[in-house]
């Protein structure tokens, strides 16, 4: 019996959020007295996959079928179900993302498993199996009992502190895995993927520098980009900015855009409408720079500077460069 953790890969290596999922799965395995097995789908670097062991996984099931190289929620769910059945898994753990939600949902329906998405805690097993999850776009939490025999947890980013000192050099054992793939899962054809390979993904980013209408126009974005570059950060924006086409839609952070949970979120010229806050309230540390001292975002911030972003951003960029 095992706890099964699905991990996403990027260019053959395990994604950062998935290392968190492995660490979370290893903790759940400790609680349930089992072991954590990882499932990887698609072409991957085996040396990189073995690193799952550094975070507590004992085994990696690797399905290298070419057909699984591109995201496919249906085929991925089929593969996950077959892996769970093979391993006798009672708990399945997946990081929250578009892909994670899609495959977790289809797997839950196949397995008739209770599914909780947006999990923010390790399970409490003292009386029954309970987890806490984020609801109302981060404005509240719900403690939820999962009654089904098989449980699927879709976990949020940054909910478990990966203790660097606990990372070992132990490597996970890699086993080939050959799921039976259905032709019906591959009826839809992927025509094109528009992916900016040079950009840091917002959902994976540790630091995000984001701009709002206070940036006054798309031509003024360079100081913000300079700070992001110095910090190795991803860039985001508020909804009005993407609505005005100042920045691409995939940078829109908020309730109807992307929800992020970086270690550091720097908001430049964003007043902090409640819909924007709903997209960033999973951030560990929030910095707000705004010339309006009454901007509501300051109430949600850890650090604030009242002033002109165009004067402040170059100073911050220089300070970061001096630091490195």
């Amino acid at each position: 019996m095992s706890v099964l953790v699905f991990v996403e890969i990027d260019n053959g290596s395990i994604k950062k959020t998935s290392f968190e999922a492995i660490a979370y799965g290893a903790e759940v395995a400790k609680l349930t007295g089992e072991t954590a097995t990882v499932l990887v789908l698609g072409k991957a670097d085996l040396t990189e996959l073995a690193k799952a062991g550094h975070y507590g996984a004992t085994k990696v099931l690797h399905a290298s079928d070419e057909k699984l190289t591109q995201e496919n929620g249906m085929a991925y769910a089929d593969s996950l179900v077959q892996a769970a059945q093979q391993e006798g898994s009672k708990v399945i753990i997946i990081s929250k993302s578009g892909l994670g939600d899609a495959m977790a949902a289809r797997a839950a329906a196949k397995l008739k498993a209770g599914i909780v998405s947006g999990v923010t805690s390790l399970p409490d097993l003292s009386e029954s199996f309970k987890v806490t999850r984020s609801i109302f776009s981060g404005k509240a939490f719900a403690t939820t009992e999962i009654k089904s025999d098989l449980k699927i947890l879709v976990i949020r980013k940054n909910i478990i502190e990966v203790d660097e000192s606990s990372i070992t050099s132990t490597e996970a054992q890699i086993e080939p895995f050959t799921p039976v793939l259905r032709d019906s899962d591959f009826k839809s054809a992927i025509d094109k993927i528009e992916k900016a390979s040079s950009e840091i993904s917002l959902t994976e980013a540790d630091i995000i520098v984001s701009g709002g209408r206070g940036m006054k126009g798309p031509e003024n974005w360079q100081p913000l980009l300079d700070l992001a570059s110095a910090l190795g950060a991803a860039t985001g924006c508020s909804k009005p900015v993407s609505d005005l086409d100042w920045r691409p839609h995939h940078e829109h952070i908020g309730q109807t855009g992307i929800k992020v949970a970086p270690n550091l979120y720097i908001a430049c010229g964003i007043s902090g409408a409640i819909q924007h806050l709903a997209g960033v309230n999973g951030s560990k540390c929030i910095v707000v720079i705004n010339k309006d001292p009454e901007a509501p975002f300051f109430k949600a911030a850890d650090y604030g500077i009242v002033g002109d972003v165009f004067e402040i951003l170059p100073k911050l960029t220089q300070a970061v460069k001096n630091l490195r």
Partner: protein
Amino acid sequence: MKILVCITNVPDTTAKITFTDNDSKLNKNGIQHIIGPYDDYALARGVELKEQFGGTVTVLHVGEADADPQIRKALAIGADDAIRVNYNPLDSYDTAIQIARIAEQNTYDLILMGRESIDYNSGVVHGLVGEMLGIPSYSPVMKLDIDGDTVKIAREIDGGKEHLTASLPLVLGCQEPISEWKIPNMRGIMTAKSKPLVVVEPVTIDEMTIPEKYSLPAPKGACKMIPASEAETLIKLLQTEAKVL
């Protein structure tokens, strides 16, 4: 084309969330409910497709009678009829079973809904429904065009966009910019009053998950203000105090 649009009835995005009955229930006092913002996009695109190709748009809500004003609003926006499953669902799985049952009884070409509700934010109902019906599901869909049997979809993926060609039937979780939200006009509001809203009873299912208790995040500490003239010190604080650099 027969289109089913599933809508949620959720607290307004600006609502202050509190709980009652020993933190076991949402305090609905003073909260205005709305159609889920993502569902609004699904509804708008569904109505546009009906206008383009003919057919019908049916609105489906799983919930109690307090959602009827939102259902009437959806009818005013352009849906032809509505079904309400008279039941407060336990969780996403339960909601999906109720939707799948209605879909099985009526055979729709396209089932549209928002990418997630803004109350429980699970984002899994479209996948559950797709699997229960044995048809493909995609989310979050930002672009949807239909030409004969061919469906062109653009959906958001991590750091970009994926363009797909698929065929009906499909379940899609929608988000902007798939369409512009529609505001009902006076004629729509008047005709909505006479459009059918059928109330059906739920199917019973085994309990999968039970929300036991709700809680609010710990209050945020005061924001540490740094004078603009000393902006550089922020970087040092982020490194030494907040330890995020």
